[in-house]
């Protein structure tokens, strides 16, 4: 059921379009939840593959974010680093239901198990 599988993060209005919010995970990596200008939501581990910059603090444009530390560009859809650099950020399955944000629970709490 929804309660067991999905983690309810509350209403979508918490995050303004073009911005991101953070979700620390005890014992795991912090997660960044992005709201694009177009209204899409994505969740990624809040860590640039380059020097671990907090992606949640970058400028969001289209469906990518530019890391605030060294301007690496990351696709919010795939977590893939764009342009000439290489790397990938783990993504977390997310869904919006009745105006609320849900993350796939196993991807949130299971990330540290590996």
């Amino acid at each position: 059921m929804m309660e067991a599988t999905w983690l309810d993060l509350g209403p979508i209005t918490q995050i303004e379009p073009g911005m991101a919010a953070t979700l620390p995970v005890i014992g795991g990596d912090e997660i960044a939840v992005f709201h694009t200008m177009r209204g899409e939501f994505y969740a990624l581990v809040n860590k640039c593959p380059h020097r671990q910059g907090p992606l949640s603090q970058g400028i969001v444009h289209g469906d990518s974010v530019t890391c605030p530390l060294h301007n690496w560009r990351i696709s919010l859809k795939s977590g893939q680093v764009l342009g000439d650099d290489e790397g990938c950020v783990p993504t977390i399955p997310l869904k919006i239901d009745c105006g609320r944000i849900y993350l796939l629970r196993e991807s949130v709490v299971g990330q540290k198990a590996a």
Partner: protein
Amino acid sequence: MNAPATFDSARPAREKLVVIGNGMAGCRAVEEILERDRERFDVVIFGAEPRVNYNRIMLSPVLAGEKTFDEIVLNTAEWYTENAIELIAGDPVDHIDRERKTVVSRSGRVEPYDKLLIATGSDPFIIPVPGRDLPGVVTFRDLDDVDKMLAAADLGGNAVVIGGGLLGLEAAHGLSLRGMNVTVIHLMPTLMERQLDEAAGWLLKQELERRGQTILTGADTEEIVGKDGHVDAVRLKDGREIPADIVVMAVGIRPATRLAKTGGLECERGILVDDHMVTSDPDVVAVGECVQHRGQCYGLVAPLWEMCRALADHLTERKLDGSGGYQGSVTSTKLKVSGIDVFSAGDFSGGGEGEDIVMRDAARGVYKRLVLKENRIVGAVLYGDTADGNWYFDLLRKEEDISDMREGLIFGQAFALGGGALADSNAAVAALSDDAEICGCNGVSKGKVVDTILAGACSLDAVRSQCKASASCGSCTGLVESLLALTLGDEVQAGASTMCKCTSFGHDDVRRLILEKELKAIPQVMQELHWTTPDGCASCRPALNYYLLCAWPGEYEDDQKSRFVNERLHANIQKDGTYSVVPRMWGGITNPRELRAIADVVEKFDARMVKVTGGQRLDIFGIRKEDLPAVWADLNAAGMVSGHAYGKSLRTVKTCVGSEWCRFGTQDSTGLGVKLEQMSWGSWMPHKFKMAVSGCPRNCAEATIKDFGVVCVDSGYELHIGGNGGIKVRATDLLCKVATEEEALETCAAFIQLYREDAHYLERTAPWLERKGLEWIKAQMFDGLDAVRQLAARFRHSQKFMQDDPWAKRAAGERRDLHSHLATVVPAGMEYA
């Protein structure tokens, strides 16, 4: 017992099909079934509304007065009779009893079924605010709602529509045509954000406002206020109150699953169905907006037809079109507001792996965007010219490879398929006659452009400056580039670099055009100057934000999402993701109270380091973003404000102790330093800006490697500009010498303003001075009679809106969302220590 038995035996045994829902989905499903097998079912349809089936999506034209109800009826009373369908209208089904295989209506009527079809559609979503039940608050779902709106419109007055999506805007349009004063309240910053991107949403907003509607985006409803038992106003969370004689709630719909849920059918968002529209009970099927198929719910009409075909194939065990069930739908949207053409299809969330083709025509108010992936169209947004919408949608659905017509694709079907010559843009331009107009804004013909190129203009920039072609809106840039290529071949010179890959314009042109065309918002700049991306990039957004801020002080509203993190959080991000905080110390002077407050903050927030900076300030390291407001509150309490050590702004004014203490000091350098800092703190600049004041030519404050430096001498003040101690050390140039402190302050204000108004974003004064030349700067400041005074006056005007401590506002709770976490996840079994 007897009579029905006799009646039944006269006909072959038929199965009983009960349909819940007399709407577009239910009736269409029945039509599809009858088309395949007229004899198989006895059909009973329950409808909640007391009328025959009508075309619900045409309610908007009925509201707008463009159609009557009779014109939108889909199935007349005769249709039900001719097909021996029993319609039970106005008596909705109350519950389903799957064990007994019956449905029970509200009036108590029990109807047995062999097969049950659920087509309950969707319910309007009502936002849970106080006052939502007041008389005068309506939804926009059925004819009764339209009647209520028409009754309200007859009395005139104010209408508030909550929701700026498809439905809300159509309601607003209708009420506006009926003479009401309409305000649309939309939670998101972009209208129709599910179908449009920021650029198209902005154009739509402009057009609706031009037509007299008030559009409030980013507006969150707090309460619907009543008076004398009727709706009276809508109050927003920011305190604004909008008068309302009627409120239309059109924020969205949700699948109507109540009957299915209480009947024990599996539901998530919608009723779960397989590819044959069968629910978790094999005798119960469902179609339309109430179902969830492969994780998807649909709120548009087009998927219904495909669903109904799949359902009919299954129920009659006949396949008319041989399909393997329902495969899900790709949808497209058109806004039904007369005179406004908006089309949207597929996925256009853009950027990333997809590739955008954008075409803008500011003069015609056209914006077109195609999103490509692996040579296929995956999304399209069209505004102002939707003639090719269906063609693009067709290419999208068929997943056709478009590589052969890629060049001309954005210009539409006629152009792209117009044959080789036209598809090659250079050849098309070559075919133009000499008197063909290239640049509409400045009236420049092809012949004129070619002559200019032959006369020595070898780059786009040179053409722009010499004959003005493509120098205004830039929509003919492609044509001019083609002419350069045709005329010069390989000898075309790359012109001055553009601002970024999103535009063909350089910084100077953008700044000039912002003023000339009075552009006052980022999406407006992007549309008018033909940006090739939908919402810019991390380079151009902050630059445009600064240019607009500089051009329209007090008028332009700063766009936080176009700010680099440091300027958004008013602190400096460090490599570990924590922040450093530098409070302002005017001229580098501090006192015990400030020092105690800083020491307390360091201990209280466990800052890992405090350091004296090169600009004579104290820098507190290792503060977490969530602690920043509390840190600022403590520093504010001791009288300190933001030091802007994080901004493209005035950083610090470094001073020596000057004549007050030093035996060599010639003037009060600390006093002047404090005055300079108080005059210029808080101003945003193209890049960071540092100042210093030295009390004598020994120059202890190192004023000659600052952006603006003052060296005091016996007879007055030497003012120096364009120094830099960074990667490339540059000593200042002497700008002038003045006799009084007042003149020094005035000249400084004027120089800062000249830099603010002319330099490119992220250009320090040193490279700016080298690019423009010292003589040019002197000429700007001293050739005109009154130039210094005018520049300084503009700076002071702008400062009126800037000298507002950002820390105090944050400490008071503004933009808490930027500093707090959504939540913290604690895995099961783990407790906080």
